């Protein structure tokens, strides 16, 4: 190798090291995820490893906020951040934790169900890493993560993912999707351990009703919808009618018995909880979306989805107002309220009573349209 080649090689090496250090710091910073402020009813912040110690000292361990009322009652669990690229899931959990006043019973809230997924982004998706919104205490920055566990924590994926215990086969990348890993197993991979931890919490605390908060791309058929395990269908039907009467367009589906690994199937089958999953419309998911940006993630705006609405490709209406985060969180929080009310009707001795959490009207319908897209949601956060 000539002298000239050595110089070029050295230059390339220096550039590579500079890029490596710079981006390395950026990727490491993503491992610090912001946590909710404690709301009026938060009595304890535990870790999921308190229910399953196999998660201790792993990136799968995650805070569990315990909101205990003064009166005895039943227990509910709210799962936010199952998919860390579906912000209305974890932002609803944040809002619940920071605003709820629980009078009877106990509500467990996990803002980041797949904590590991919060610490990276999906290669190839060109997603944003952070978004900032004004709150009561000033600007707060939140993470935007990935659908799946960080490969730093669980790698490599097998060619084919075989679900335990059903033996259902899915694409290998689904191995890191916690909503294909339930009921989980104590000696499985990290994602299966996280799912097992959630199931253990439900079993130990006798959680009567569980909510899993999701978002889907507007072209995905199951959207603006609730999916419930068959043992939760009575409650889900009653709650769904209330939502419809309240002006929220909500479809109700029973969990398919042949599609495994999801909360609404496995938590219903392997625990005594009534498992309910809700989906809202997220413009930053899907293949039809336009350029990535904060306005897409929390404003819910996207020009290409407007075009695809005209093409009849979508399962939700989509216009220039999009689907702002307030509408999406409002749907989730109102859904939790109505389904818990229906649960209380069926289980008066195990009632879960709370107030103070903004619903669909406060968050979306009654809001000044100019404040939608983060600012209005932030006004409820500490």
């Amino acid at each position: 190798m000539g002298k000239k080649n050595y110089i070029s090689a050295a230059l390339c090496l220096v550039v590579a090291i500079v890029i490596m250090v710079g981006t390395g710091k950026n990727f490491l910073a993503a491992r610090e995820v912001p946590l909710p402020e404690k709301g009026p009813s938060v009595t304890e912040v535990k870790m999921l490893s308190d229910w399953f110690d196999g998660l201790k000292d792993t990136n799968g361990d995650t805070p569990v906020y315990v909101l205990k009322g003064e009166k005895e009652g039943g227990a509910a669990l709210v799962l936010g951040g199952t998919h860390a690229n579906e912000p209305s899931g974890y932002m609803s959990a944040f809002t619940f934790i920071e605003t709820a006043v629980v009078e009877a019973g106990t509500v467990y809230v996990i803002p980041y169900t797949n904590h590991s997924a919060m610490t990276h982004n999906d290669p190839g998706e060109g997603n944003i890493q952070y978004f900032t919104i004004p709150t009561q205490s000033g600007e707060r920055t939140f993470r935007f993560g990935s659908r799946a566990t960080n490969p730093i924590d669980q790698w490599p994926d097998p060619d084919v993912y075989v679900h335990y215990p059903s033996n259902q086969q899915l694409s290998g990348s689904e191995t890191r999707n916690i909503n294909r890993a339930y009921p989980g197993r104590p000696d499985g991979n990290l994602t299966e351990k996280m799912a097992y931890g959630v199931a253990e919490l439900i079993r130990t605390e006798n959680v009567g009703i569980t909510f899993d908060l999701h978002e889907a791309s507007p072209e995905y058929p199951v959207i603006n919808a609730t999916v419930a395990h068959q043992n939760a269908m009575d409650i889900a039907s009653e709650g769904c009618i209330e939502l419809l009467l309240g002006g929220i367009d909500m479809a109700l589906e029973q969990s398919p018995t042949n599609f495994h690994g999801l909360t609404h199937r496995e938590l219903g089958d392997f625990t005594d909880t009534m498992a309910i999953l809700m989906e809202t419309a997220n413009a930053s998911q899907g293949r039809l979306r336009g350029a990535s940006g904060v306005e897409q993630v929390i404003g819910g705006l996207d020009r290409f989805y407007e075009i695809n609405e005209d093409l009849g490709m979508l399962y939700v209406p989509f216009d220039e107002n999009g689907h702002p985060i307030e509408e999406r969180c409002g749907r989730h929080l109102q859904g939790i309220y109505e389904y818990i009310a229906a649960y209380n009707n069926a289980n008066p001795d195990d009632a879960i009573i709370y107030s103070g959490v903004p619903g669909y009207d406060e968050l979306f319908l009654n809001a000044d349209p100019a404040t939608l897209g983060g600012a209005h949601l932030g006004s409820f956060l500490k």
Partner: protein
Amino acid sequence: MSIELITFIAMVAVFLLGCFAAKLPVSISMVLSAIAGSLVGGHGIAVRHLVEGMFSYVDTILVIATAMIFMKVIQESGALDAIASVIIERFHKVPALMLCMIMLIIMFPGMITGSSTASVLSAGSIMAPVLMLMGVPMLETAGILAMGGVLGMIAPPTNIPAMVIGAGIDIPYSGFGLPLSLLTFPLAFLFVLMFGYKHVKKMNYLEVQAKLNTESRKKFGFKVYIPLVLAIVLMTLTKLVPSFSIGMPLVFLISAVVGCFTGYKINLLKVSKDSVNSVLPVMGILMGVGMFIQIMTLTGVRGFIVTFCMSLPAWARYIAIAISMPLFGAVSSFGSASVLGVPFLLTFLAQDEIIVASALSLIAGLGDMMPPTALAGIFAAQVVGMEKYTPVLKKCLIPCLIIIVWGLLFIAGANILEPFIILG
């Protein structure tokens, strides 16, 4: 003109200028193209996105590097010569059957792993000398390898593009076996006979026999086959026992290390260095491709392309599938399945979803024949010792068109086929 279209034009222009005007390697041209897209799209030089995108294909890169090491080891250990001579000696009297068997062997690693690269570089490299000794010309041999790789990747039991498309609308990967078999095996037998039969049927066995190198067989006996047997056993175990999932790279590495002790002496370090050197351009292309996709998505170019395809009238969607899925596969066949396969499947929800997803996966698989990545074409050319891979792609043009028509027929007739080929 929308900013997305301008960005797309800028990316394609910089790529073409890099490749043809500046004569830069394809990988570097893709990086420059991604940077140009990032600049035109208003994101400056989005270093974080470039690095993140580069990691998209890290698993594939590992498979390629280790499969190449394995291939060189079995070549230098004498295993390839041994198995070629055995197959010809045993089966030369039934050439058509032998060709079909050879095709199945080429497809096997792809069927197990879902990777055309694994097929071409492992079983393909074993069968290439057999085919050439029997009189199949180098180019036709490469064609058989390439098509075997693509069809092996799509054939059951493991078809990753079908899984990716199914996952997009939550269809579990079950019930795909028969549709995928019908989509792949008839074509595989057709192509191997198309390329090979006329050469093999006039084979003069005595001439061929004189060329067979049986020395390694005589010297090492069964021992020389151990790395091949081990690779097959490990691949099959990975499939049958999920808890044993050690991954393709480790399967190839373990078999390669064992191969160092079962035949002629091998300097593993030198072989590894040579192997990685020979696949470095392909690994570079995959890194560039990752950056390219990331910037396309970041800037909305991906959405622009997909929306354009969806905006076509219903009849034109068949044409869009035929053109856009293999073309997008130039970036990656798995990417094509994910980015275009899922929306196309959504437009055909009135048809049987499993058959449509299976057929779309077959067409997406052609991405592995589309330059600049063209993994199946590049490695097939490399295995038979050709310097350029473009003649292989030209040779495979008609089979590729047949694949497209076959796939579209399945989509159009999905509801007619459904009672016969969807079990349960």
